[in-house]
């Protein structure tokens, strides 16, 4: 972890700039910077974060570089990613 500082990755979530560490999932990176809502549900417009955390429940899906329904708990952040909440 000693060189983690040099492995900082910048990305955006709903237009806001964020940073994470290489190897972190989108969900982990966002939660570390205090994000508590990854998306809103289709019918009830309710906020959702992660639930199973291991790719089973699909509750954390986000749009990554315009590809919909990507599991934020599995997909690792990459430099310059543009991530947004699906609706």
């Amino acid at each position, binding site marked *: 972890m000693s060189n983690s500082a040099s492995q900082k990755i910048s990305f955006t979530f709903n237009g806001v700039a964020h940073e994470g560490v290489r190897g972190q999932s989108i969900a982990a990176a966002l939660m570390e910077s205090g994000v508590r809502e990854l998306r809103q549900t*289709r019918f009830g417009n309710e906020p959702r974060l992660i639930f199973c955390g291991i790719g089973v429940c699909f509750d954390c899906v986000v749009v990554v570089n315009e*590809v*919909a*329904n990507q599991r934020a708990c599995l997909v690792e952040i990459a430099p310059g990613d543009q991530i947004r909440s699906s609706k």
Partner: protein
Amino acid sequence: MKNPDAIVIGAGIVGACAALSLTNAGLKVLIIDRGTVASGTTGAGEGNILVSDKDPGPELTLALKSRDLWFEMQEDVGDSFELEAKGGVVVARTDDSQLMALAQSQSKHGVITEKLDSVRLHELEPYLHPELSSGVLYPQDAQCQPMLAAARIIQSVIARGGELVMRSKVLGFNLAHGAMKGVVTSTGEYSSPIVINAAGTWAGEIAALADSYLPVAPRRGFILVTEPAPQYIFHKVYDSDYVVNVASSDADLQTSTVVEGTRSGTILIGASRERIGFDSTMNYEIVRKLAAQATSLFPILRDVQLLRVYRGFRPYAPDHLPLIGEDSTVKGFWHSAGHEGAGIGLAPGSAALITDAILGRDSFMDPHAFSPKRFAEVLK
């Protein structure tokens, strides 16, 4: 129920509509099913109520009437089963002459058609492949949620004095001098002089229990269901090959494209047809083929993910016409089965025909073409 006026075997859409129509005619109806409501083919379909895929003839007459009856039934039942006249758009992939000829002859028989040039086609379906340039709009084509429809209709039957017994398997019939007396089931015996076989794909097995013959065979179909997606598709969209395949008697696999959105946001993609018995083995090559056909119509679907695949068995009769009418040998034994992939659409019309025949009333059309006796005559 002690002595029902009529017993309907099958709680799918065809049985549900028959039960409602008989109930509305004043009969006390018992519905029995070996499973639960809509647990057979009704529960494995898209809910098509189509006039567009029928050639002029008795089936088209039935389909047109049936389509109107769907909307009347919605008024009658007074509850929502997502019935929607979303309209069908049939697209010609290459040569459109066959499609245009069909549309022309259909329009002479009461089908509303609108020929679509490239501009109008893409106005109706903006995500369609840009090179597709010709099609026909069928505004009468409609859709419902078939499981919900069967359930709501059966609820109305029950509210009007009927009864539903689930997990009741027909084991045999009580007959006397060639006339129906009642049904022997795994949940007991039920007496009635009138029994309607609405067992869909399994109607042949039911007929055989009364020593009768009904040539209904399964024609397997796969439907792909995608993840929820934005609204990319606004009608029921299919390619003109679909009409050819529906009418084909070939046992081999045929696939043609039918694509549509649903209220829940998922996209349904069909349709494959093959006659391989009740084999529910997954075939991923068919899945790929259906996906490829859908993406060739709508390139935007390439990024949409497949979530699941339905498998269903359409009740198929050798001449592709349903079997509606009295049994060739047993009096009081009636059939309404073999609707193949059109059972949802044709169910209320078939129910009207069978009710009229049972009550000896005149009907909206001559039901002769659908008579189950047509195969008995062939056999002799």
